């Protein structure tokens, strides 16, 4: 049991020393394996969202005018603010990883809490948007009403709008819960220095959600805002 010897050889700084699972040679290998596993998961997530992006692209080609008209009815101001909110949360998450490696307990807990609050703020703003769209009758199957010949295309645009932003919101909600849990654990002194892997993996997931939104934002909010021909 080489692992046990190595573990015993470390200075006993109770509580902060990361566990090396039996199947790994050392901490370095364990960390690399976690990282690879996380990226493989994210690759499947790329394809999960990719199906919706491909569907969106195909229908946007077929129902071109309807998609442009539909996009004009999204709330671009709130969408832009939300993009900035999410980018800011990615900054605080990146800084959280830095502070975990540097062994700064209070800073780590604080940054994770700010990240969590920014994620929650995004969800509140998104909720306000959804409510506005419901009031305007833009939600498919929930009192959708749109005058004129483009109604069919606009309906389809909003089907994609709600499925894409909805799937994104589900991912963000999961992220908020996980960040909440690790923020509470970080307050108790976990994840510092060599033990930062968990924060790094949660960070990868959080940044991935940010990237998805970076693509959703122009595709859903910015079509044909200039009034000219597309």
């Amino acid at each position, binding site marked *: 049991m080489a692992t046990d010897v190595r573990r015993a050889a470390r200075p006993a700084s109770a509580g902060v020393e990361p566990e090396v699972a039996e199947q790994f040679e050392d901490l370095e290998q364990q960390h690399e394996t976690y*990282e690879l596993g996380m990226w493989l998961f994210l*690759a499947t997530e790329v394809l999960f969202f990719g199906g919706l992006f491909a569907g969106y*692209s195909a229908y946007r080609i077929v129902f071109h005018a309807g998609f442009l008209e539909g996009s004009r009815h999204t709330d671009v101001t709130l969408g832009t603010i939300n993009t900035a909110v999410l*980018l800011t949360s990615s900054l605080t998450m990146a*800084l959280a990883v830095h502070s975990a490696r540097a062994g700064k307990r209070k800073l780590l807990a604080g940054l994770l809490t700010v990240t969590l609050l920014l994620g929650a703020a995004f969800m509140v703003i998104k909720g306000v948007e959804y409510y506005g769209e419901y009031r305007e009758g833009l939600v498919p199957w929930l009192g959708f009403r749109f005058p004129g010949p483009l109604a069919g295309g606009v309906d389809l645009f909003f089907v994609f709008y709600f499925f894409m932003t909805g799937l994104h919101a589900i991912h963000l909600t999961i992220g908020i819960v996980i960040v909440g849990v690790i923020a509470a654990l970080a307050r108790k002194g976990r994840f510092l220095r060599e033990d930062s892997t968990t924060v790094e993996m949660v960070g990868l997931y959080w940044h991935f959600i940010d990237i998805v939104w*970076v*693509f959703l934002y122009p595709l859903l909010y910015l079509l044909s805002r*200039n009034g000219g021909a597309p």
Partner: protein
Amino acid sequence: MNRTRESALVPFAVYIALIVLLLITWGAAYVNLGPWNNVVALAVAVTKGLLILLFFMELRVSRKATWLAAAAGFVWLGILLVLSGSDYITRGVLHIAGK
């Protein structure tokens, strides 16, 4: 795990670049560039995505195996988009019955 030495200023620089790019893409949407509106919007989104991948997600200093896993997702996404796109985009060109 030899990444502790990187300056904490790097995320701030990346963040400022991301916000500037957000303002560019937002502003550009209100200018009539014809078909270039789409190009600008997607180019900015790809640039923002790369900045997040390389710096926030630290692919810049990741091992080759991690690069491979990350690239796999995007390569398959590329196949999905290119092959389905080649159908929908060329339907009008080839005059295939049934649209």
